[in-house]
């Protein structure tokens, strides 16, 4: 075992990594944080666990909501997608049934028990109603929690940072934990954020697309000059498109580990939360959902990655055990994908995606938010599924019904956001102290 491999392995073990990896993450985070510093005069006695916890998982790249929760009965869906539409339940490779009109991608099947016992709610058209369709811009906006018109997305800190400040009791913020390569901007402003270092080398593999077929068919057209010209032009165009898309996908992934690492990251997050019982906020981001090429349907690239996402969420839920009753997990990407499939059997950056809301107090087993529909006039910019539920409404609903914050406090967490009713009633009130957790 070489040194680098040892370090990488150690990086996966936060408890051990601390003494080896330089100054403790708390210190680093505190240096970087822009918000309230931990109060040195705060009582040193062990803080009590917060009554409600919130974990944000960002599958980066813009996961295809229309594949995660396919509107399988909608002909606009099936006609927009030659290779990426999921067949209806009951057909070979069909999706799992959620409601009469919506299914669940079979790769997300491990989440079905949570839907059935009403711990999982799903917003089929969730996101930010405005904003850029490029990954860094959209991600910055999501993490800032600000409105699309606001140019201060990067300067205003992250919404989890502001949420931490809003949750402060007697000046003391709850703890916040991120697992990843660095403190994510969504936690900017949190005074007590820590990063559990998690690095993973190598990007998600990028599919070859049509290039192997172009290579194979090269010899077919040598005797047909017009076809051969068109063929070479098509191949060159395909290559440059592949390079452009691969670069975009790298940009979308940033330094986030592949979603394949999600179960492991979930373990690290759980470990960190166990060792810091005062932690109320957690977050991690994974890559792999910018499926511009060979997305697949029931099987294939996206299916594989959704499988990792489901495994990670299940690992988190199982690992939380009884704590799941007061921990809410929100998984949502920076946007969804285009309704219409592109020329590479993939989908392009779109608008609304799917939000999965799992755990504490979720009045689940149902779809939440509006469904704008897929008919041409209902699409955003005439091309993408429009937003039927602002993702900030979910966080608001959690904070007001689970964490005891009021609307005024939430107005400071999401300045400029006019709350909608889409997420009303999606959480039940927290159990009274002393009652048995679910």
């Amino acid at each position, binding site marked *: 075992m070489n040194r680098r491999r040892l370090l990488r392995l150690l990086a996966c073990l936060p408890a051990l990594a601390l003494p080896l990896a330089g100054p403790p993450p708390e210190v680093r985070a505190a240096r970087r944080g822009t918000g309230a510093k931990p109060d040195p005069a705060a009582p040193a006695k062990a803080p009590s666990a917060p009554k409600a916890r919130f974990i944000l998982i960002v599958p980066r790249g813009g996961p295809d909501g229309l594949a995660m929760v396919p509107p399988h009965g909608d*002909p*606009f869906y*099936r*006609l*927009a*997608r*030659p*290779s990426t*539409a999921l*067949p209806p339940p009951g057909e*070979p*490779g069909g999706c799992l049934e959620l409601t009469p009109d919506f299914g669940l991608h079979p790769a997300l099947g491990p989440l079905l028990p949570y839907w059935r016992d009403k711990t999982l709610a799903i917003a089929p058209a969730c996101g930010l109603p405005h904003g850029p369709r490029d990954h860094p811009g959209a991600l910055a906006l999501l993490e800032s929690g600000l409105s699309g018109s606001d140019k201060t997305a990067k300067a205003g800190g992250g919404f989890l940072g502001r949420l931490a400040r809003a949750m402060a009791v007697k000046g003391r913020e709850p703890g916040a934990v991120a697992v990843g390569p660095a403190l994510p901007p969504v936690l900017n402003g949190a005074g007590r954020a820590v990063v559990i270092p998690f690095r993973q080398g190598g990007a998600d593999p990028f599919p070859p697309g*049509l290039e*192997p*077929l*172009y290579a*194979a*068919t090269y*010899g*077919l*057209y040598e*005797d*047909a000059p*017009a*076809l051969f010209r*068109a*063929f070479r*032009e*098509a191949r060159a*165009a*395909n290559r440059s498109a592949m390079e452009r898309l691969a670069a975009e996908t790298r940009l979308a992934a940033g330094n986030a580990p592949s979603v394949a690492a999600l179960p492991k990251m979930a373990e690290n997050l759980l470990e960190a939360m166990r060792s810091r019982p005062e932690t109320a906020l957690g977050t991690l981001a994974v890559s792999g959902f910018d499926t511009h090429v*060979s997305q*697949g*349907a*029931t*099987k*294939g690239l996206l299916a594989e990655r959704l499988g990792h996402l489901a495994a990670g969420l299940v690992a988190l839920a199982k690992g939380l055990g009884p704590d799941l009753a007061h921990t809410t997990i929100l998984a949502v990407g920076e946007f969804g994908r285009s309704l*219409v*499939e592109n*020329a*590479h*059997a993939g989908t392009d950056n779109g608008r609304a995606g799917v939000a999965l809301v799992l755990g504490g107090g979720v009045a689940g087993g149902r779809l939440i938010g509006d469904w704008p*529909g897929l*008919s*041409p*006039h*209902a699409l955003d910019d005439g091309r993408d599924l429009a937003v039927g539920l602002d993702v900030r409404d979910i966080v608001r609903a959690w904070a007001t019904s689970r964490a005891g914050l009021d609307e005024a406090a939430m107005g400071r967490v999401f300045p400029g956001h006019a709350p909608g009713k889409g997420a009303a009633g999606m959480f039940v009130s927290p159990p009274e102290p002393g009652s048995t957790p679910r």
Partner: protein
Amino acid sequence: MLAILAAVVGQAPAAWGTDSAADDKKVLLVLNRLTYGPTPEMVETVRRLGPEAFIAAQLAPEAHPELADPPWLAERLARLSTTGLGAVALFRQHGPDPGPDGVIGPEDLMAARERTERVAMEQAEARLLRAVAAPAQLRELLIDFWTRHFRLDMGKGLVRLWAGAFVREAVAPRALGRFADLLLAASSHPAMLLSHEALKNSHAPDGAEPGHGPDATLATAILRRHALGPDTPVGERDITALTAVLTGWRLGARPDDESGTGFVFDPKRHDPRDKVLFGRTIPGGGWPEGEQAMHVLAEHPAAAGYICRELAVYFAADDPPPELLGRCAATFTASRGDISVVLAGMLSDPEFWDETLCPPRFKTAWRYAASAARAAGTRDFRAEPLLAALCRAGAAPGFERSADNPVDRPTARGLAWRLALAKGLCGGDIPVFEQPGPTPLLSPARLTEALPGLFSDKAQKIAREAKADGGAVLLAAPEFLSR
């Protein structure tokens, strides 16, 4: 007729069945020209019957029960809920619904637009199912031909809603009939009336209310696009005369009648005077003037030349041999515009089958997709993924982006789209065939066996070397890209 066909297609009847390689070539030539592409089953049929009997049957599908839709296809078509409806029923069930307030607001229009798109999708699916699987293939091609010939303005909502009814009510029953009948049925269909502003066209005697008067849009379209062609000089007097014939052509239906096309003739808005069209007098007589006018147009010498040229461009070559066109036009005139007779003549003409005069042509996106599905030779296919692929190319029936689509030509985009479709079909990513994963129906071994003589040795060798992509290689081979 059989004898003529035999003399041409098979050179001599005795030659058929003696040289299997030459037979294979003839079979493929016949199927590429007169169907949406060879299927393993139709290859067998043409071999068994010989080309001449096959063609004779295709020219008279009503007389051949074996060319009726098989029950499985009829059953699948029947599952589409709107493709059996006439124009009036479509309007009442799917058109704009004012709701309880009696006013058609923007919301009602949006809802109607969505219903219209669903109706249009079902019509496209029906067209694809029939293109892939209907045994009366020549009639299907003619329906395609006439639907393009009588192109509707699909940007108008009700025209979109009625486009399928137009094909079923006006085109399909007369696709192999008399041109004058087809011209009248197409010109008077509600979809056509709306497409060409015909409702604006009304008789305005002196002193009538302003805003009413003749509108020549439909008359001009009939003369220039439908009957005589853009190159035929047409005088102002003839346009005015035909416009006057068309006055009073309107829409409507009794509340208790949902069966008709929705065409009504309104004598109050009709110009009652005599008309002179191309020197022939049509006495003022109301609705029957329409039929007389269509006969005048169909018997105009330019109609024979124009329609025969269009047919030859569709079936034979981009630039058909002039002698072939001359003989077809003569047949058109002699048969008084009987399309099946004109086609029988064209298909018995040696020049039609001469591959130096009428060389193979690049398939349009629509015909390529249909031919690829046909090559698999199975009834277990899903239409929707294939339609979705066609929509991506802007080439699904009724959803065409433009009359001149670069994907229809051997352009980089056209080739890229075909390669992607070929790969998707063979690998199972575009799930047209029931089995998940790569389909054995489109494996190189199966394709070369089921469609003998189609693929060159070179294409077969490249396909073998391409392993998993072998089927896609064959579907991308020049001999499969053209017909």
